[in-house]
């Protein structure tokens, strides 16, 4: 079982690499070095702020786009092209397929994020010529970004297991946007009354709470991250991804292949 999941994951990773997904790194590098040079004239403090803010935001956005664009096709494309026939007629359980796909995509994103992170640290070193202890906070921000990717991967897979790539993309992007404002949504729900309060609260807690994962601007200002938040976000991401994946499995287990 573990073997099969790993084989499926590594094939998914290999497919992403051969489809030149990692080429986005070039765009990322250009963006970052361009920005670093542009702000090179201003004072050191602001430079650092810009590089960290811009760098990490770009890491997160590039990753989200990749997660969604690969994720939405992972299941539906295989059904459409009928590549699944010769996989599922082997001793591969349907849930193993889904889980393998998830790890393959997550792995692709981790590798991608690693290279982008190297870029961010490179740019940082270029502008400030040294690293300080507070820069380690960037690692926490990157960790949160990866947690966020896990949730998005699992959601894209969930949508991919029952709808077309186009619709899945729409769903996933909307959830990403709404999730980024989850905190505002919760505040808003608190102010509503009656039945709309229940609905709004339900919706606010159902969408992934990405606002809690965004610590980019606070670490850019060298404010520390509470260790409680790290634990909380880790548990939340694992729980949310597991739920979404279970949903994907439940749907896919019952589905007739075209």
């Amino acid at each position: 079982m573990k073997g099969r999941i790993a084989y499926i994951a590594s094939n998914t990773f290999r497919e992403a690499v051969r489809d030149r997904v990692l080429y986005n790194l070039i765009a990322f590098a250009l963006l970052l070095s361009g920005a670093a040079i542009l702000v090179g004239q201003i004072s050191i403090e602001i430079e650092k702020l810009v590089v960290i803010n811009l760098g990490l935001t770009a890491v997160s956005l590039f990753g989200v786009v990749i997660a969604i664009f690969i994720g939405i096709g992972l299941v539906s494309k295989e059904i459409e092209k009928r590549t699944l026939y010769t996989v599922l007629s082997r001793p591969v359980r349907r849930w193993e397929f889904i889980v393998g796909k998830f790890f393959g995509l997550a792995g692709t994103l981790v590798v991608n994020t690693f290279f982008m992170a190297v870029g961010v640290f490179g740019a940082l070193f270029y502008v400030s010529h040294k690293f300080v202890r507070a820069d380690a906070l960037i690692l926490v921000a990157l960790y949160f970004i990866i947690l966020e990717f896990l949730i998005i991967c699992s959601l894209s897979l969930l949508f991919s297991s029952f709808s077309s790539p186009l619709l899945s993309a729409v769903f996933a992007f909307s959830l990403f946007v709404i999730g980024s404002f989850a905190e505002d949504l919760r505040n808003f729900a608190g102010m509503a009354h009656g039945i709309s309060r229940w609905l709004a609260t339900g919706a606010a807690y159902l969408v992934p709470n990405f606002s809690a994962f965004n610590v980019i601007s606070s670490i850019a200002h060298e404010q520390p991250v509470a260790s409680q938040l790290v634990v909380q976000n880790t548990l939340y991401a694992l729980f949310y991804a597991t739920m979404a994946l279970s949903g994907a499995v439940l749907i896919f287990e019952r589905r007739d292949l075209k």
Partner: protein
Amino acid sequence: MPAIEILGLEKTYSVGFWRKHTKRALHPLHLTVEDGEIFGFLGPNGAGKTTTLKLLMGLVFPTAGSARILDHEWTDPVVKAQIGFLPEQPYFYDHLTAHELLEYYGQLSGVPAKQRKVRVDEVLHQVGLRDVRGVQLRKFSKGMLQRVGIGQAILHNPKLVFFDEPMSGLDPMGRREVRDLMEELKHKGKTVFFSTHILSDAEALCDRVAIVHKGELRGIGAIEDLTSSVQGKVEMVWQGSLVPASIKALGAEIHVSGDRVRAIIDENQQDAVIDILRRERQRLIAVIPVRTSLETYFVEKLRRSETTAGRTA
């Protein structure tokens, strides 16, 4: 122990945007395939052959019924390691090369790493793809993909293989090779279940065939039984071009071509004709019982069901 027992599998698809309409692709099907047979599953386009195979592979779920494969429940994952499947018009991960694909499928089927290497090379050779083993599948032609499909189906040495139209897309050499391969599988004690509408392939290969039409089983049996349900006639062939008047008088149907005469007569007149030929000093070359071809049987079956269907409608 039968290799496959289909116990009333049936499939009704819901179609249309609201899934309100239904389309019955397969009526309850009962069918048993014995261990070690080559079994042909015949039927015109849209008969339900592919649907049956997809049900057996667990790719679609039956509306009712069940099946047993190799003495296990058909959905049992244990079964999956012992069967091979060639889908119709197979398509594979096109970012992989033929070699990588087989390697991957070997992993999924649980072939141990050491054997896998040997086996992948063996199979690539067997299906004639050794020279293109390093080419990405997106650059393969239809027939080459079909060969990959056959290769992946036999890769893990399954006891039972399911081929959905194995000859489609292949050149004459390829067809010949696939026929030989199926015979070799049978020789090794494997069971082969394949769908086709090429009747000559079925006739040449199968121990038994089943005929489906509009999702219903219309006939099943050994090729000899289906085709020898004959008129009780024999074909006699002798040399020369002389047709004795006494043979004509028997009411024989006679064809003369080159220096051969072929006469089709009733079985019970066979001895009389032999006597006449001996008297006339003609050289008898052959006496062949006349069989209906599988094609005649097939067409006959479908036509008959057409008329009965018309009557009940």
